[in-house]
Every structure is written in structure tokens, then in C-alpha cells.
């Protein structure tokens, strides 16, 4: 039966998340945007111990997470709902929260039970840790099948060589904690997509070096690392999925991760968009300007119309995102819907945050408020985890029944 309301216990949990966003993230939001590359360790410690207590602040630990007792049947929905709350607080800080991250998601999706225990187990206690995923290279981003990083078998080990960029939380995972990096590498370039596998490289592994941390437009609280793998050796059983090259399956295994992560990124976008929308609404209310829902074209001011448009665009993006997550929870193939949600949310929120600044004029542009930061933060959601265009391409292929060869 169609339903648009979370269970009461989830709604209660979301209130808690909202409190965290409002009282722990917003107060340090500006500070860690301006002090890029410095880390809010106190915030990390608090989130880490809270995660230990609640065992649910770990996006990468999804496998074991049964937050608020919703269980596996609503796991992805629960994750996107909490993500929206926390990114309402601050998207950069959200991304920097110690957890297994996208690397954890990959292990949860493709790892064996033993691998999950071994790599994700440490995230349930001890000191704050980070997991990260390294896909993009200097020479390829969206075209992830073109990666040149290699993994060569040498006895009981894999030897990894190559350079990765844009690795979110890469520095925290590789050098600043006892975390890990999941790195994509090819076993055989001539096998194309089918040759691409992912490997877990634990922190401090010799041959893995963070050579640079990027300066960015937004999400500055989160580190984005360039990592060089120079004859970096990991044990044989650090490969995720089968070591066999299956030309039929291509790289469906590694791509499957995106079905879960794209709705999360869409939810991140929506959290930022909602922050901007709430801010503008409050501001208009202070100016005694109420949005006259129901009024026709001739009675609405241009500002009211803009606001209404922003509000419903955000809502449409949220509904598409909920649907994509719901399908995953229901065990359905959701690649099409995940890309629809991601493409829609990334663009909608980019536009919403830009319009929000316009509505407040010079006040919106000022760094005394957070609007300008949210516009900078929002933009990343239109880019990472597949750009808007890559997601449109995936949608197009699905609706047209075309392969990546037929529509490129």
C-alpha cells in the first residue's frame, strides 16, 4: 500500500539526527569551511562514540545497521532519511564523519561475510576510523572503465600500481586513522570493464601515499585526496568479489554499489536544498512576507513564485529519491530510478541554492550567512557519484534499451 510516512520510531530518530545537525554541526559549519584541512576532532569523537552507542551512524556499516529497529526491509530508506537530516546541518561535516564510507558500502555490497567481519568489524569500536573509495584517476573520471591502475598477482599477494584522485576522506582513511581504502584497479586492460576489480588496502600499507589534499569550492570540511600506489602489496584475499575475469558480467559487481550510493548522494543534495529553503522561508517570514499558496499567477509576486518553484522541485527530487531507496529495500533492480533521483536532485538543488542567494540579494552573498556556503556545497552533488550528465546517460540507456556501446 502506498505510504509517504515513516514509522513513528524512525520519525523519533530523525528528530535526534536533526538535533545533532542543528546543535553540533551548524555552530561549527562556517569555521571548518574557512579553516579548510583542519579537522573538528571533538565533533569526530562525539559522533564516533555516539555511533558506538547507537551502532547506526555508519553509512559504510550498513550491513550490520538496524537503526531504530527498522531492519533490513527499510535500511536504504532509513539511510537516506538520516542523510537528509545531517546534510541539512552541514554537507562537508557529514562527509567527514568517521565511518566506513563508500569503501564500506563496497565491502557491504561485494564482500564475503568473512571480509565484512574483518574489514568493517573494527569500525564498531576503538578510535575514530574512516573508510574511502578510490576510483577516479587523473586521466579518467566518469569513464571509470578506462582506469589504468593495475593489480598484478604475485603469489599470495596483489601488487597495485597507479594514481588515484578525488578520494573522499582518503587522507583520513589512509593516514590519519586505522581505516582502509577500497581501490579500483584492472587485472587485464585488454579485458576492458570485465577486468576491473576492487581491492581493500588497509591504512599505512607500504607503497600507498597521500600526495595531495585538494582545495575545493565547497564541502571543505571533507578531505579529497590524491593517492599514489607504488608497488603497493596487499594479501590475495583483499580482493572484493571474484578474482576471475567474467566478460559476460562486465563490471556489474562494482557498479552495483552505485545503486545504493546514488540515492544517498541525492539525499545529501536534498538536505542542503532544504537548509537553503528553510533559511529563505524564515527570512521572508521575518520580513512579514508569507507565501500565498493557492494564489494564481496575477496575485503572486515573483519572489513567491520562485519560492514555490524551489519548494516543489525539492519535493519532486525527494520523492524520486525515496522511490529509488524503497526499491532497493524491496530487493528490486533500481539502477534507472537511482540515476533518475541523482540527476534530478543534483540539478534541482544546484538551482535552488543559487536562487536562494538571488532572493536575499547582497545578504545571501555575504559570508556572514551560510547561504553562499550551501550553494558551494550543493554543487558537488551535481558532480560526484556520477555527474548529472552521466546519470542522464544511464537513464537514457535504460529507457531506450541501449548498451553503453550503442549510446555513449
Amino acid at each position, binding site marked *: 500500500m502506498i505510504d509517504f510516512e515513516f514509522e513513528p520510531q524512525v520519525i523519533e530518530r530523525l528528530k535526534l539526527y536533526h538535533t545533532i545537525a542543528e546543535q553540533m554541526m551548524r555552530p561549527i559549519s562556517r569555521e571548518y569551511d574557512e579553516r579548510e584541512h583542519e579537522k573538528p576532532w571533538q565533533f569526530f569523537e562525539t559522533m564516533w562514540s555516539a555511533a558506538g552507542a547507537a551502532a547506526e551512524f555508519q553509512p559504510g556499516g550498513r550491513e550490520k545497521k538496524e537503526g531504530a529497529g527498522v531492519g533490513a526491509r527499510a535500511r536504504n530508506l532509513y539511510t537516506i532519511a538520516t542523510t537528509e537530516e545531517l546534510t541539512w546541518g552541514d554537507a562537508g561535516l557529514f562527509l567527514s564523519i568517521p565511518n566506513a564510507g563508500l569503501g564500506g558500502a563496497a565491502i557491504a555490497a561485494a564482500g564475503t561475510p568473512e571480509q565484512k567481519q574483518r574489514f568493517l568489524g573494527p569500525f564498531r569500536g576503538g578510535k575514530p576510523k574512516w573508510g574511502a573509495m578510490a576510483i577516479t584517476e587523473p586521466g579518467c573520471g566518469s569513464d571509470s572503465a578506462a582506469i589504468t591502475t593495475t593489480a598484478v598477482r604475485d603469489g599470495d599477494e596483489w601488487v597495485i600500481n597507479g594514481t588515484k584522485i578525488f578520494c573522499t576522506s582518503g587522507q583520513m582513511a589512509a593516514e590519519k586513522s586505522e581505516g582502509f581504502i577500497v581501490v579500483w584497479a584492472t587485472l587485464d586492460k585488454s579485458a576492458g570493464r570485465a577486468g576491473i576489480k576492487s581491492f581493500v588496502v588497509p591504512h599505512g600499507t607500504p607503497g600507498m601515499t597521500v600526495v595531495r589534499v585538494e582545495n575545493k569550492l565547497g564541502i571543505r570540511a571533507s578531505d579529497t585526496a590524491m593517492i599514489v600506489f607504488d608497488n603497493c602489496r596487499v594479501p590475495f584475499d583483499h580482493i572484493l568479489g571474484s578474482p576471475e575475469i567474467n566478460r559476460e558480467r562486465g563490471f556489474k559487481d562494482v557498479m552495483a554499489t552505485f545503486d545504493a550510493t546514488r540515492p544517498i548522494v541525492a539525499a545529501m543534495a536534498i538536505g542542503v536544498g532544504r537548509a537553503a529553503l528553510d533559511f529563505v522561508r524564515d527570512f521572508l517570514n521575518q520580513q512579514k512576507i508569507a507565501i500565498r499558496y493557492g494564489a*494564481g499567477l496575477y496575485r503572486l509576486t515573483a519572489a513567491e513564485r520562485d519560492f514555490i518553484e524551489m519548494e516543489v522541485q525539492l519535493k519532486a527530487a525527494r520523492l524520486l529519491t525515496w522511490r529509488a531507496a*524503497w526499491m532497493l529495500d*524491496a530487493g528490486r533492480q533500481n539502477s534507472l530510478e537511482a540515476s533518475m533521483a541523482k*540527476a534530478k536532485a543534483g540539478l534541482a538543488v544546484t538551482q535552488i541554492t543559487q536562487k536562494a542567494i538571488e532572493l536575499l540579494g547582497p545578504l545571501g552573498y555575504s559570508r556572514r550567512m551560510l547561504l553562499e556556503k550551501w550553494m558551494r556545497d550543493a554543487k558537488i552533488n551535481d558532480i560526484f557519484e556520477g555527474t548529472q550528465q552521466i546519470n542522464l546517460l544511464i537513464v537514457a540507456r535504460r*529507457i531506450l534499451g541501449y548498451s553503453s556501446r550503442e549510446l555513449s
Partner: protein
Amino acid sequence: MISFEPTEEQQMIRDTAAAFARNELRPAARAVDEGETIPDGLIAAASKLGLVRAWLPEEHGGDGLMRSALTGAMLMEELAYGDLALAAHLTAPRLFAFPIIEMGTSAQRSRYLKPFASGNFVAGSSALVEPRYDFDLQTIATTARQERDGWILDGEKCIVPLAGESESILIYARRGEEDGVSGFIVPREAAGVLISEPEKNMGLKGLKTYEVKLAGCRIAADAQLGGDAGINFARIASQMRVAAVAMAAGLARAAFEYARDYAKERRAFGAPIATRQAIAFMLAEMAIEVDAMRLLAWEAAWHLDRGEDAAKESYLAKHYASASALKVTDNAVQVLGGHGYIREHPVEMWLRNARGLAIMEGLAIV
């Protein structure tokens, strides 16, 4: 718990409506748009569907299905996927019957609902929109003045579906400056009711609409829908908007699918045009918009089904769908290029229909 899964009953109604749309509505759409009358066989087939009767209470001779805005939204999407104008024509009687079922007095229900139990198509209608550029549902100017032994209605309405064919019309009017909007059941033959020739509009030609003038129109004291208690007009307005949004989704889906199939067939520079990103991306965006419209309709409908008036939700959804349906149908014309502009293909008709849907209110109800 969040779910996007229709019930079995909803899925059944959806499938039935989809088959009807595909087999009956779509094949008839172009001829009707070109001015031919709706085939009797189509009207008869529609009557079998029981678009009113299914939800008519058993005591009034109907099947007594529980009314649901969600189910209504699914039904309207499928019918509009076949053809928007015909869908609006065939469901127009709901505009009269549904508010009476939900908000009428028992005397009104007994008196007006019976004809809709028959197996034949029985026209019915409601009059909402007024012929002003700045009309909106909050500024209805038609008035109802209470006299000792009845009401006197004054005002002008337009785009009233099937006004010339209906025995009685449900007219929305304001009792005074302070009051909200009320409904009045007005016999077509009442003195002071002036019904125009059918309107000539840009699109929606399969739907006969009329202007209705009310000049000192005197009706009985018991003609106010719901009696002294009146009606929840906000709820009715939302039910109409949800229907419009769902129809926009159906119309847009028709245009999207047509353009998609055409783009896979049509070759240029040695390959189907759908293999070019310029076309493929347009189609991808169209697909996303169709789904967004449907989900917005469902969400507003869900609020209605919980007994709320869903005023804000349905308004936002209508705002979205008005722009989106136009964009999708316009894109469909664009994908077909010159062929899209020719009346051999349906996309130009859908663009005209989308323009109408976007500016109109009160064309259908869930």
C-alpha cells in the same frame, strides 16, 4: 512505512483503465480532435467501466467501492495516457456525482445519484472557472444570495464540461465576501441560466465545454450542496488538482513514449537519432519528469486519503505539473522535428492539450 506499491485493487483498476486507453481512447483521439463526434461504441464501452457507478454507494445502485484519491489518480493517469480530452469527457459526470456522494445531504444523494447507477453514460458537470485573466480558486466571483425561499445566483463560468448535456450542474459560488466557496445544484433549465454554444478552444476538442451565465438565477432553498453545513471546498479543489496532475503525468507519458519510439526508428547521419546524446538526454529528462509528476500526484492524493484537505500539496503539484507537462510535450514535438508539427502524428495535439491542462482548473476529480 514508506511504500510505492499500489494495492491489488489499485493495480487492477490501473490495468483495466490502461487497456481501455490503449484499445479505445488512443485510436479515436485524432478524429475527435479534428471535429468528429465521439463514437457511440466508445461511450458504451466507457459506460461498462463504471467510472462513476463503481464508486456509487450500494444504496444508490452502485458498486460501493471505497473512494480513494490515490486510486483516482492512477485511473486518471491511465485514461489521459489514452487521450486527455476523451478522458475528461468520460469522467466529467464525476465532477457532479462525487462531491454529492461525499458532501451532499442524504436528500441530495437520493435525488441526484440514481441516474448514475444506470449502465448508460449520463452526463454531469460542475462549473468552477470564470472567464477572467486573473481568475484563481481563491477569488471566485460568482455569488449566491439567500432569499426567503431560495438562492439567487449571479456570475459567469467558462470551460464547463458537458454543461449543455447535463440535467443539473454543480455551480461553485461565494455566499458573501467573508464566506468560503459553496456548491449549488442548478438545473440546466432553471430561469436565469444561459448556456453558450460549445466553446472553441486550442485543444481538448474531444471535450465539449460551455460558458454558463447566471443572471439572477433563482434556485430552491435546498439546492446548497451539503445543506446548511456546506462543503469543504479546499478538499474538492485539491481533488480536482490531483486529477489534473495525474492527467498531466499520463499525457506526458504518452508523449514521452511516442518520442522515444520515434527516435529509435528515425535515422539521421547513419544512425537512429536516439543514439545521439542531444536527443537521448531530452528523452531521459522527459522520463524523469513523468515520474516526478506521478509521485507528486500520489503524495497529494495520499494526504487526501488521510482525510486532509491537501491544499498546499495539491497546489504545489499542480504548479509543477503545469510546467512539466508542457515541457515534455514540447520536447516530444521537438524530437519529431518537422514531423512533430504535422497533424499526422499526435504530438502536436498533445502539446495543445498540455497547454490547456496547465491553465485550467476543475477539469476532472479523483
